[in-house]
């Protein structure tokens, strides 16, 4: 249904971002927490409105922006991510000297970019959303301007990110040249009908995949990921590891769900994705083994998870993909929340040695962190186990057995480095005592919400699975 209402969630977020930017001028530096409350308030409103629009199928701008169930569900995922990240940042930006008014505003702009990405079926609009997200992200990564690592992260992210955007837009130019359209469905329709110009279109699609590969951090386009994740402020790292990845995979799903139905020409792209998926799982997990910085370990783990998610794309298993993204949100944000919890004024504890003995000194943080790590590794009864299980079962049903074998072996390797953190926390004698800033109720709220999410999705996933199925059944096909 064509209605102005389809713009509402997006307008609310943009309005909140601008409002925060204006309020920042009038609010004293000590009272900056109010900006967080304002942002949280608008996020809740936006979430409620998205919920009201479920099953309504509003669209606007001649269908360039629409709110089908799929985009609403993905919007939920990224709104919840931003919500958690803001809660995590409230104390962090005071302790680590990132206390700039632009912080929340940039986060909200990045959120608006992702919402544009997930709620459009046109490559040009997706590109614009991607750029809104990327440009805000470059600034966010470098926000700790006194820290040289943070600036280095920002410049690496900026250069490789804009390089990837150039690939994406050139690929789009080739696709446009072949099919005279920028809409995903008509481009794919072209793949079905024509053969004369198809090499150009195939190269175009390949370049688009490369452009997205940078954003979702798959090997061999992952070089920026560990450095950016290490240098950026930790809540922002949590945001990068979940938000853009969810939005990127949503777009890939919109491309490939119809694309696989067109058998013609799809072999080359299929093998390209297969190779990327295998490389991502193997390299991500093996390089993580020799890292000693916890943020870098989590960075490589997030690369590896992109590999498992690609298996779901290859197996045309939309339900498992979206379910995996949901679980991944809770377990990854939770793990980063535990990392953020271990910090005091102007000091963060990020090396593995710092974690020695943490499990006994701070039992709650240690126990929840261990649960998130078990979930990332894929142990039952956590959500991570079910998510991986569904993805692998779906792939076996499609006959992708070799891919599944590599996936299972890779996740066995991953158990080693996840358990290493737990071993440090519970079985090593601390060499130096660490002190942390404990009065942080918002952070503990996030820890327990994520714990609840991981266990709920692992033990009783029924309700969420029904929602996910409704969401993916609304994906447009010809």
């Amino acid at each position: 249904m064509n209605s102005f209402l389809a713009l509402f969630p997006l307008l609310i977020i943009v309005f909140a971002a601008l409002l925060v930017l204006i309020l920042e001028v009038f609010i004293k530096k000590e009272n900056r927490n109010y900006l967080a409350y304002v942002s949280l308030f608008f996020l809740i409103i936006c979430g409620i409105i998205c919920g009201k629009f479920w099953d309504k199928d509003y669209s606007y701008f001649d269908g360039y922006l629409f709110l089908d169930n799929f985009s609403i569900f993905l919007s939920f995922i990224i709104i919840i991510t931003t919500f958690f990240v803001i809660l995590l940042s409230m104390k962090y930006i005071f302790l680590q000297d990132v206390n700039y008014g632009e912080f929340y505003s940039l986060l909200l702009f990045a959120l608006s970019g992702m919402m544009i990405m997930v709620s459009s079926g046109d490559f040009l609009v997706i590109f614009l959303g991607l750029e809104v997200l990327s440009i805000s992200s470059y600034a966010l990564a470098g926000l700790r301007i006194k820290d040289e690592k943070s600036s280095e992260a920002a410049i690496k992210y900026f250069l490789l990110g804009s390089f990837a955007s150039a690939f994406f837009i050139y690929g789009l130019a080739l696709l446009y040249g072949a099919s005279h359209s920028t809409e995903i469905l008509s481009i794919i329709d072209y793949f079905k009908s024509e053969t004369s110009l198809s090499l150009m279109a195939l190269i175009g699609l390949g370049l688009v995949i490369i452009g997205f590969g940078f954003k979702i951090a798959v090997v061999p386009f992952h070089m920026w990921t560990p450095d950016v994740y290490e240098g950026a402020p930790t809540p922002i790292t949590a945001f990068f590891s979940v938000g853009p990845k969810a939005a990127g995979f949503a777009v890939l799903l919109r491309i490939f769900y119809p694309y696989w139905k067109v058998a013609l020409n799809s072999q080359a792209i299929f093998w390209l994705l297969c190779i990327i998926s295998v490389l991502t799982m193997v390299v991500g997990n093996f390089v993580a083994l020799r890292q000693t910085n916890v943020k870098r370990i989590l960075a490589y783990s997030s690369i590896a998870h992109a590999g498992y998610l690609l298996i779901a794309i290859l197996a045309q298993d939309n339900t498992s993909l979206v379910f995996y993204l949901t679980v991944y949100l809770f377990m990854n944000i939770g793990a980063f929340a535990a990392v953020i919890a271990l910090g005091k004024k102007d000091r963060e504890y990020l090396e593995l040695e710092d974690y020695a003995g943490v499990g006994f000194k701070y039992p709650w943080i240690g126990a929840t962190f261990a649960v998130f790590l078990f979930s990332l590794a894929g142990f039952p009864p956590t959500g991570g186990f079910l998510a991986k299980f569904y993805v692998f079962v779906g792939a076996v049903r499609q006959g992708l057995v070799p891919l599944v074998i590599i996936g299972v072996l890779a996740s066995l390797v991953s158990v080693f480095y996840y358990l290493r953190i737990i071993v440090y926390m519970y079985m090593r004698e601390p060499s130096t005592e660490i002190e942390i800033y404990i009065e942080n109720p918002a952070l503990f709220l996030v820890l327990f919400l994520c714990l609840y999410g991981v266990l709920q999705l692992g033990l009783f996933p029924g309700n969420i699975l029904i929602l996910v199925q409704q969401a993916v059944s609304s994906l447009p096909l010809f």
Partner: protein
Amino acid sequence: MIPLSYFLILSIILFVLGTIAFFIKKDLITMFMAVEIMLNAANLAFITFARSANSLDGQVIVFFIITVAAAEAVVGLAIILLIFRQKKTIKSEDLTLMKG
């Protein structure tokens, strides 16, 4: 009249040159300029295809890309300036705080 395929070949050459320059140059600003050349190669391709298809879409898209490139330049140059203030250099090989 110059055939349209010439423009397309020029755009491909520009794109490849930009990609190569991005990898072999060590200066942050030159790397950024290489990316801009790649974006402009895409612009040229869009205009060529718009002309060959007799549609205005491609020409409108070019304006979007120009806007995006300008916005990227703002943030990018600010970050490069920040790097220069901290390290007094903008060579990419001096960015070695994080490795592995």
